[in-house]
């Protein structure tokens, strides 16, 4: 059993299945009028975010609170990081306050791994640079499984800014392990440089990339991470790569559309698709809470964490 959740690349398929099954069981709690179970009473979970986030941070905090853990949220912008404190010193100080679990997001790829090695408590990667975002991929997989009943043999087309997307990488590792086929679809300038070595089909033509897909996952165009010159213009990107009703004509008839958010409406996804009948985008958000409950439950349980 795992002791941290840093990357799905290193997570065993049976652990992924366990987390998805547990999250599915926990979902019922979200529909209760009293959304509270006593499992993690007395445990302290800290969310340390060096990047802006709404849904991931709130989702982790709500998950912890539903399980009766206490949460503290640290935003790097208002913390001693501004005084020049290093990442490792910051997390060691938090640990010295006897916290039980650290959830962290950091712009540097590999930072979560570094912190996990330095701390003797469970560390959850809530996004590290362009590397991975494992809980997002788990909630995506849970959403797909709820709609399709399985993950095996499905074709999942991930469309857009693959290069900068930790969501695409985590989904690639997770979905492939669970037997799905993954396609990366996007302009050549936004594909990862090592894409030939990854277990993925690559398409630079949107229509061909979406043909016969069971799932289409649009990614946010991460303009804050882009150097200049990767795209001619947003208008052209939207015309060639945007997910709209016409683009979906070549997919399977029961194809679902996903987006990890936040969305640039009218750029990578059209309004009528984002709000349309195939969209499962808000279900993804709900499933995010259940998945994070499952992650905290398994990481904080048992003697290993005591």
């Amino acid at each position, binding site marked *: 059993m795992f002791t941290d959740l840093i990357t799905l690349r290193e997570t065993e398929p049976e652990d992924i299945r366990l987390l998805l*099954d547990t999250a599915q069981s926990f979902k019922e709690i979200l529909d209760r009028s009293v959304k509270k179970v*006593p499992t993690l009473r007395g445990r302290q979970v800290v969310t340390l975010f060096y990047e802006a986030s709404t849904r991931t941070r709130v989702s982790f905090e709500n998950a912890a609170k539903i399980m009766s853990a206490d949460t503290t949220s640290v935003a790097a912008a208002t913390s001693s990081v501004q005084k020049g404190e290093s990442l490792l010193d910051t997390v060691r100080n938090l640990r010295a306050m006897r916290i039980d679990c650290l959830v962290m997001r950091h712009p540097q790829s590999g930072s979560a791994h570094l912190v996990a090695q330095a701390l003797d408590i469970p560390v959850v990667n809530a996004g590290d640079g362009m590397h991975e975002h494992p809980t997002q991929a788990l909630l995506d997989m849970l959403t797909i499984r709820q709609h399709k009943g399985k993950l095996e043999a499905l074709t999942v087309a991930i469309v857009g800014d693959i290069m900068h997307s930790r969501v695409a990488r985590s989904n690639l590792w997770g979905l492939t392990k669970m037997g799905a086929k993954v396609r990366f679809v996007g302009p050549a300038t936004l594909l990862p440089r090592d894409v030939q070595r990854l277990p993925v089909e690559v398409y630079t033509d949107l229509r061909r990339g979406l043909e016969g897909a069971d799932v289409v996952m649009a990614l946010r165009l991460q303009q804050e991470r882009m150097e200049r010159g990767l795209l001619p213009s947003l208008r052209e990107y939207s015309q060639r790569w945007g997910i709209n009703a016409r683009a979906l004509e070549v997919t399977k008839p029961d194809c679902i559309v996903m987006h990890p958010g936040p969305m640039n409406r009218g750029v990578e996804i059209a309004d009528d698709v984002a709000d349309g009948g195939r969209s499962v985008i808000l279900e993804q958000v709900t499933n995010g809470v259940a998945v994070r409950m499952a992650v905290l*439950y398994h990481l904080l*349980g048992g*003697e290993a*964490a*005591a």
Partner: protein
Amino acid sequence: MPTEVKVMDAHEMRRALTRIAHEILERNKGAEDLVLVGILRRGAPLAHRLSRLIEQIEGTAVPVGELDITLYRDDYRTHAVSDIGATNIPVDITDKKVVLVDEVIYTGRTVRAAITALMDLGRPACVQLAVLIDRGHRELPIRPDYVGKNLPTARQEFVEVKLQELHGEDSVCIRKPDEER
């Protein structure tokens, strides 16, 4: 070799459950406002059977719920359980007479957790407890209202209840520990 003694077969189990069904109706003066809630996993099939028996006797269908108590256990720090079932109670239990159903009562900690879990779901008029086997060794002040069979055991013995729905047969066995150990 550990020894195994069969203490209940399918016929005896059916008789015990039929008697419990009668007792539930007797005590509650009928089936009105009753809800049977089985504790996962072995309590759930028993709750469904009791509901069918009550319907046969009284002609009234009693709703059945299933309760997973994993998140309410007090031993989470030493035993995080992987096999988590989903709670599913089809009716609002507020102001209902809830009968919790489990296969064995031992320390009472499972029942304690189940009562807490129920209270998070609503405010029942009362909670009663039906068990197939009472094997003693309580650690909390909890006593079942309906007992299929009192079974004095040693702490190191293990009571195994097999149910048709889960294991393909109905039986209760006591397994004594290996004497060499």
